[in-house]
């Protein structure tokens, strides 16, 4: 009853007959990266706007942004995934809902997955951006005002350029999180890396080879991102500033 290893499985053809199992995994990796990158762009845009709003003097706007962060941080990612996929289209006008549901695959799963991961991660990015801005000395904003800059100009030319540099390390770990979290999209049918490994297990029957390969690929991607970001951090580092320590935990 012990386990029979068979590492040659990666070169065996899949039942579709279109390629090897290794090829399946690499296509899965491509979808993992495509999902993560698209969602990341969305998260950066929404997160930055929200993060900035939370530091502005407009009380009601800040409260609204705080509400967004609370909402998206306190519902499990998987539940949010189901809400976007199953529930959201039912609340739209029927024609629009049907149009979303009938997008050809993989888009009908990919689009909700990106929206879900993007809005989810935006809450976390907003938290980092806010912390980054608040970590700057108050004098910076006053200096901006003293120079005759408007509030938006102060943010654009004084606060944000520095804030973004000092929150680069926590943003890196959020980016790593979004890559890992993209695996949750398998529950709504995105055939990303974990799903590809699972499919390989189902048809090739070699569970542990499939999962070992997926694990190695994730580790390699992880290490690659970390090195790329270290290089970027060094290039844009602002002497004298150390990033704020927003300890939020996460996966």
């Amino acid at each position, binding site marked *: 009853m012990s386990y029979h290893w068979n590492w040659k499985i990666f070169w065996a053809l899949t039942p579709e007959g279109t390629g090897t199992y290794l090829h399946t995994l690499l296509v899965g990796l491509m979808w993992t990266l495509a999902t993560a990158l698209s969602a990341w762009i969305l998260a950066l845009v929404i997160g930055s706007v929200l993060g900035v709003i939370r530091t502005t003097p407009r009380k009601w706007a800040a409260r609204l942004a705080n509400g967004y962060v609370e909402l998206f941080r*306190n*519902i499990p990612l998987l539940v949010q995934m*189901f809400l976007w996929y199953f529930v959201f289209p*039912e609340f739209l006008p029927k024609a629009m809902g049907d149009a979303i549901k009938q997008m050809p695959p993989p888009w009908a799963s990919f689009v909700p997955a990106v929206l879900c991961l993007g809005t989810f991660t935006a809450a976390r990015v907003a938290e980092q951006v806010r912390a980054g801005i608040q970590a700057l000395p108050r004098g910076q904003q006053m200096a901006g005002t003293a120079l005759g800059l408007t509030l938006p100009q102060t943010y654009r030319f004084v606060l944000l350029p520095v804030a973004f540099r000092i929150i680069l390390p926590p943003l890196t770990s959020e980016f790593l999180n979004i890559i890992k979290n993209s695996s*949750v999209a398998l529950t709504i049918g995105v055939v990303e890396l974990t799903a590809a490994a699972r499919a390989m297990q189902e048809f090739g029957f070699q569970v542990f080879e499939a999962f070992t390969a997926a694990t190695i690929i994730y580790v390699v991607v992880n290490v690659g991102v970390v090195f790329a970001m270290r290089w970027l951090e060094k290039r844009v580092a602002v002497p004298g500033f150390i990033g704020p320590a927003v300890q939020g935990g996460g*996966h």
Partner: protein
Amino acid sequence: MFGPFDFGVILRNLPYLLKVGMTFTLTLTALAIVLGVFFGTLLAMMRLSSIKALSLLATGYINLMRSVPLVLVIFWFYFLVPYIGAWIIGASRPVQVGAFLSSVITFSMFEAAYYAEIMRAGIQSVARGQVWAGYALGLNYWQTMARVVLPQAFRNMLPILLTQTIIMFQDTSLVYVLSITDFLGAASKVAERDGRFVEMYVFAALVYFVICVAGSYLVKRLQRRIAIVR
């Protein structure tokens, strides 16, 4: 297409959702906290150890766990733990590990890697002089750790440990991929059986939201309290 929002379906299935689903989720969370913090603390101590091999082993484990998605880890453990069990006790056949026990092991071992990093920061936040003072009093390594360093480390790190725990509570929903009946699993079974997924998923989101917000609020209060004492 699915008609108006039907509160009845929630009420009718409430006993099942709470008794079966929520009980599973809460028990799993509680056990995983206890075991996760225990193994996490061990891992942190190993990582800070002056024995290179131990430190490397712990670092490797922590980094591995932190770079792989939880979904993949859940699959890994569900299929692998019986073989590991057989290997540890020396049996020649895989040891039977049920869905619940397997989930407890998965979350304990996965969270241990996250708790370890938090505990490491906690241990390092305790002044070096405290360790020396412990040794000067004639305490050995374990005594110093247990009576001097760890109590302070826990105290410093409590808010972060609890925040991580709230995240873990949310993450237990991922056992859905194994068809295990946790709270979300129960909700999705009712949703699929009765075709009422709008109601069930919105309700599930609401329940998670209320619990997590209440939890974060308590953590914040605790944080303020600890801050005043120090």
